[in-house]
């Protein structure tokens, strides 16, 4: 009598485990089934490499948005990655015990703050500042990059710190024993050993930055044109979807879903690289 319950519960647990597989399959099916036909209708080349996004003229080229996403993400990496990795080094190796828990909960707070709040902060604090320096309204690649850099900090710090801590203490001590000072030991013995883990953290941060929507919409300016300089506005793939989904219909709407497919494809590739890097680290 008990064994029947045992096996049936086992299958229930198994079914629960299958839900995540089913969800991924469903998401893929729905995105591709709705997006790919539109791409075919517009023409893959025209869609991916078209320079004009003018739905009222039936022109659906998302190349400016692809470049926009790449521009703000690169900016976020340039600003956020060095600060993130060095802060992780500080937290893992240099931080006095008294500061550590405060800094750690501060970083966790950064990770928890909703993206609209970041966007709002960027809009009211960073954008006017940039407007004063670079002229114009201030909504720009630079503003989006700065906000994104802050947003990916906790990801990079968290993963890098764990990677640095996972390096066997023999590396550090061996280097000290050979006469290297603390800083050189950390940077030339410990950090290279933690490289794969740190790279995984950076890739995870890139995924966050590419997929971020709300914060970017509020500070990037959203002009559907090619990037023309860090003080000029751009529109990202994510922003394109949210801005126009509300009123789009027909082919326009399908083109937006196709935009999401392109974004989804980017993210799948980034995820794949992340998993490879992580496996390498383990």
């Amino acid at each position, binding site marked *: 009598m*008990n064994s029947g319950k*045992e096996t049936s519960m*086992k299958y229930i*647990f198994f*079914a*629960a*485990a299958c*839900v*995540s*597989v089913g*969800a*991924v399959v*469903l*998401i893929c099916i*729905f*995105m591709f089934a709705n997006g790919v036909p539109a791409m075919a209708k517009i023409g893959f080349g025209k869609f991916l490499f078209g320079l004009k996004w003018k739905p009222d003229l039936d022109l659906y080229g998302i190349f400016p948005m692809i470049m926009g996403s790449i521009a703000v993400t690169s900016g976020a990496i340039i600003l956020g990655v*060095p*600060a*993130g990795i*060095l802060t992780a*080094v*500080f*937290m893992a190796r*240099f931080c006095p015990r008294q500061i550590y828990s405060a800094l750690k*909960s501060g*970083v*966790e707070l*950064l990770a*928890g*703050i*909703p*993206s*609209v*709040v970041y966007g*709002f*902060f960027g809009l*009211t604090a960073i954008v006017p500042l940039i407007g004063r320096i670079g002229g114009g309204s201030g909504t720009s690649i630079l503003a989006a990059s700065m906000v994104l850099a802050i947003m990916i*900090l906790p990801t990079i*710090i968290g993963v890098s710190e764990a990677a640095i801590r996972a390096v066997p203490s023999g590396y550090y001590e061996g280097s000290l024993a050979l006469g*290297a*000072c*603390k*800083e*050189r030991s*950390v940077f030339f013995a410990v950090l290279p050993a933690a490289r794969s883990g740190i790279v995984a953290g950076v890739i*995870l941060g890139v995924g966050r930055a590419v*997929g971020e*929507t*709300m914060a970017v919409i509020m500070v990037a300016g959203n002009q559907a044109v090619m990037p023309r300089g860090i003080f000029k506005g751009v529109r990202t793939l*994510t922003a394109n*979807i*949210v801005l126009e*989904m509300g009123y789009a219909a027909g082919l326009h709407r399908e083109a937006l*879903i196709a935009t*999401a497919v392109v*974004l*989804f494809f980017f*993210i799948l590739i980034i995820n794949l690289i*992340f*998993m490879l890097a992580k496996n390498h680290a383990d």
Partner: protein
Amino acid sequence: MKQTSQSYILRTLVYSSAGITAAVIIGLVAYILYMGLPNISLSLFAVHYTSDNASLFPALINTLTVTLFSLLFAVPVGVGAAIYLAEYARRGNKFVRVIRITAETLSGIPSIVYGLFGYLLFVTAFKWQFSLLAGCCTLAVMILPVIMRTTEEALLAVPDTYREASFGLGAGKLRTVFKIVLPSAVPGIVNGIVLSTGRIVGETAALLYTAGTVAHIPGSLMGSGRTLAVHLYSLWCEGLKTEQAYATAVVLLVFVLILNWISGRLEKIALTGGKNG
């Protein structure tokens, strides 16, 4: 000589980066509090939203509703999946690898893609229209990997001696799981729920085109309503209510602070094995 100057530079870099990070954290929080706290007033918590008071009370209630139902959908599935992975699956099983890879894929998908998926499946294909239910289902899929991962980690942290002792006393697998393993893993599981709550409360992009942006409390789950984060975004779109937007940002920040504090406590409890740590 070379070594000392180089190490001096490296040390300066490390300390200044940490300084910048700390300054960003403090600056961000201080700015939001400074701009928002003076704008918090009683009219913001009026029961009904009007374009005059821009009350965030309906959004607050909607946030709680959405959180509750998303968790209700996701937690049983996530915990069940974690039990399968931690207690039943054989090591090296091909299918288990598939489950892990899909869970990891899910956690990497951007929220706007979830939003569109929810819109295509729940709003359009199921004909639920913009509704809290569509929003909850979308968010449930989104937080599933978080619940799975934290629960599995908590289950794996339960020592095998617990299970062996239970088997030794004649308990079956199921009884061992429910009476011995799960209770010991509760702090970890609750921490997963807290983390998921944080994601739900802060989510905007996945809700815009599933739950919609109506500023009132809907009569049922089939009605549309905006959560706090969507409320903040909508205020920005309308462009006039900056004071109320600041105040909403403060309320969201307070939510995050509370959730982080609870999560920190739970991690401590989980580390000390639940001995009144």
